[in-house]
């Protein structure tokens, strides 16, 4: 993995591999992906770190074959898996220190993300006690991001 570039822990990539199998997309994705990424899909890493290119490629193919919402669904599933696994002890510790509020988590994203990703940086600005703005800066060009704001919103619990 090159310094200063985005990268992910293997478990993030494994979440995407599980997702394409659950959604019945594995055949289409494997038919279109590069030989290097196909090898990783067939034998996904779990704890080793990897460059972002294979995950970017999978997400691009998921969007092509199943739409952008599928990528949103993948993001939520991966966040729940990783937040309930590797990151959970740190989340619990942070909430015990800073308070049991989403604002505590949002203000400390830079402490959590390095456990599972590199090259992603976050800043939180609270607008009220229950709303605010997260600004994410990631190394490298945009991948699968919209060109402008749309009225669509994602709800989560």
């Amino acid at each position: 993995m090159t310094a200063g570039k985005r990268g992910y822990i293997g478990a993030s990539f494994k979440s995407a591999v599980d997702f394409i199998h659950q959604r019945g997309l594995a055949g289409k994705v494997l038919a279109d992906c590069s030989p290097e990424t196909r090898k990783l899909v067939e034998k996904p890493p779990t704890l080793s770190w990897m460059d972002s290119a294979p995950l970017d490629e999978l997400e691009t193919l998921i969007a092509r074959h199943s739409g952008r919402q599928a990528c949103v669904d993948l993001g939520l599933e991966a966040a729940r898996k990783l937040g309930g696994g590797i990151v959970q002890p740190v989340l619990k510790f942070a909430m015990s220190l800073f308070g049991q509020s989403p604002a505590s988590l949002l203000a400390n994203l830079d402490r959590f993300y390095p456990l599972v990703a590199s090259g992603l940086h976050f800043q939180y600005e609270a607008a009220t006690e229950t709303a605010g703005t997260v600004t994410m800066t990631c190394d490298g060009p945009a991948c699968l991001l919209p060109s402008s704001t749309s009225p669509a919103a994602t709800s989560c619990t």
Partner: protein
Amino acid sequence: MIELCQRQGTVEAPQVLSSDQLQTQVRYQVSWS
């Protein structure tokens, strides 16, 4: 943790502030009840 999980949250569609080959900056509006 349980209290947090019971909250209902919304993340607005992201807005790309800037993007080039070196860096991409994206803003998300978030709220919860």
